[in-house]
């Protein structure tokens, strides 16, 4: 047995030498790890530069100019940011974005944890149920949001029909018609869509917790809550933190859902920074001002990324 292993090792060690002999100097260069890794890295870096870097830096550039569609640009320095600082709708959209992100992320984290704990149990048709729970994440956002438009319709929508038919209310609420309910509705739809991301990620984390830890905790007298509090939760914390960070980023930049469901209305009560930036740039043609709104989102993203990096390094 040992001879066989030794022989195969020898072949493996000899293979690169033969390969480099065949490929010549270029081949040898590629075989060097530093060169090979850069070769692998170059396509995604180029892709990111072209499709993320260019628009980003163009956006930064535009934010310092008064620039309207098809018009000339004039440098205004920080003028656009000064204008925004006096714009009540901008501040309203900042407030809305923070509220929307905070509440939706908390709900998704709590709900996702619950979903993962249930999915971690053994029951019939577990695989099918897990697959079904992924649906909100798989269906294109615009498509599912249009379906939500119907569900939330005050007269014919599923929610209000259920409320009326079950006798819980004579008429259901106006889900998208009042500022408070419209915010509740967009948070609800965002939570519905983002829950599987938390659920599946936390489930993966759950499955890495060694059974022995639970067994020894049980022997030490821990009940279900004790095991959850002192074994499951601490083991899951890294996963929850990473998933929450990503979710904050996704939610903070959400656009499609609000654009389709409310357009930022009524009376700007659901305008997020992303929808406001879009309405200024692509609707009102004020490219500079719109870019300034978009750029204002970057510090938040930066802060989240710094926190994430610090956490990963600490680990």
């Amino acid at each position: 047995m040992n001879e066989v292993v030794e022989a195969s090792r020898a072949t493996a060690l000899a293979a690169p030498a033969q390969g480099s002999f065949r490929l010549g100097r270029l081949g040898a260069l590629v075989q060097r790890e530093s060169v090979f890794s850069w070769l692998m890295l170059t396509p995604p870096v180029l892709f990111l530069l072209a499709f993320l870097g260019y628009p980003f830096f163009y956006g930064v550039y535009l934010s310092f100019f008064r620039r309207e569609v098809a018009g000339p640009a004039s440098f205004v320095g920080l003028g656009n940011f000064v204008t925004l600082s006096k714009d009540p709708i901008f501040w309203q959209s900042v407030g809305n974005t923070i509220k929307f992100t905070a509440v939706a992320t908390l709900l998704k984290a709590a709900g996702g944890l619950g979903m993962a704990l249930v999915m971690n149990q053994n029951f019939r048709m577990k695989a099918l149920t897990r697959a079904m729970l992924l649906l909100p994440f798989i269906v294109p956002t615009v498509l599912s949001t249009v379906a939500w438009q119907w569900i939330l319709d005050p007269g014919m929508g599923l929610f209000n029909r259920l409320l009326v038919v079950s006798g819980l209310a004579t008429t259901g609420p106006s889900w998208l018609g009042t500022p408070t309910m419209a915010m509740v509705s967009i948070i609800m739809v965002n939570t519905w869509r983002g829950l599987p991301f938390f659920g599946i990620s936390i489930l993966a984390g759950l499955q890495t917790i060694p059974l022995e830890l639970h067994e020894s905790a049980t022997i030490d007298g821990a009940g279900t809550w004790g095991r959850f509090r002192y074994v499951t939760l601490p083991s899951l914390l890294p996963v929850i933190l990473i998933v929450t960070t990503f979710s904050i980023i996704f939610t903070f930049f959400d656009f499609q859902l609000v654009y389709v469901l409310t357009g930022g209305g009524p009376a700007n009560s659901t305008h997020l920074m992303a929808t406001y930036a879009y309405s200024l740039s692509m609707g009102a043609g004020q490219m500079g001002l719109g870019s300034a709104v978009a750029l204002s989102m970057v510090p938040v993203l930066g802060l989240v990324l710094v926190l994430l990096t610090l956490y990963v390094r600490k680990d």
Partner: protein
Amino acid sequence: MAQPAQSKATRRAFLRLAAGVAGVAGAPWIARNVQAKPLSITFARESSYVKLFDEHFQKVMAPAYEKATGIKIEYQIQAAGGGAVPQLVSMVENKSGADLAWVQQEWLYRDALVDVSDIAEAVGKQQGGWYDEIKHLSIDNGKWKSVPHSNIGQCMVYRKDWFDEVGVKRFPETWDEFLEAGIKLKAKGHPYGMSMGHGFADNYSWLYPLLWSYGAMVMDKDGKKVALDTSETARAVDFVRKLYKEACIEDCVGWLDPANNKAFLTSQISCTNNAYSIMVSAKRDLPEMGKVIDHALNPKGPNGQRYHALVPVTHGVFAHSPDVAAAKDFLRWTMDPKQFRPWIASGDMYFAPYLHGFDKVPEWDIEPRVKPYQKVLETGKLTSWPAPANRAHGAVVNRWVVIDMFSKACTGAPTKTVIAEAVQQLKQIYG
């Protein structure tokens, strides 16, 4: 079939280029490629709510043009309900995409459109002259930057049977009477549904006319001074708040464009302000409802005037088109009465031409209930009225400044506050 004039400029350009190229390089394949007329012209247009209108273009007009000239017309249908504007903005910014288009909100990108005065003036002369108001949109610095096609009329769409039930046999003549009728209808479970959300046309088509009929306006005639902060505006805001509370369905304050159509067709509301697409859908899918829908002009306000907001359809040629002359030839061809009249008729007069030559055509009498949509042209104003329809006005419309002034009042904000916030935004936009 009219034969369109050929693009001479392109041929001359080709001859010069081809001679040079042939002399220097002797590459005949280049000459072949440059000499060719454009193989196709792309015409971008918002999806029509009237299916037959689009079908007529695709099945009759486009093949006819291709047969006559050999140029294929690519009909690029864009999202409806204001969604087309970002696509047009994107085309202009990227200098690519369609050769010509329904240039929605052209005030945002007039500089990217070529002069089409020759076409517009000839069409006006031939077909009874243009309505004056539309000239304020299409003419910029003395040049026509677009050729007006038609207006998508917006007026009151209501359930005649329900109005009859509460004893309102004739549609209210004034906004006060409109409110009075609405209170009765809401008590019977048939509220109004007047759109006030971040939509595109169904919101401003009644809120701007209402504001004007209270004697208020957004900007002064020159577009230099904000004119909104007046007692007339305050009265209009107070009225809309009362109308919303006492006569409307709660939801309408957040409605996007399709919402009022849906609410009307599902019998949730008794009246809304819309194009006549609701009746088209009802006649097709809900024939019983189709019989009891009627249309009426907007009510008059305290100043005794009645107004309507125009929703213009204008066609323009992009300067970035590889063959501007060919695109203009095509546009000229579409406006020839031989093509234009059947095209308009195919849409059941959903699109009302801004040409006086169409005021009395028999097509308007096929469905008498559609007639008000022709009448709106008489009192129709651009939303910028009386100020110029310029870029700044585009920002006012797309940031829903006036719409939100009303909707904020409906959701509880004091009149003074909502007007002050609107004025602040107007000052920022108009600089």
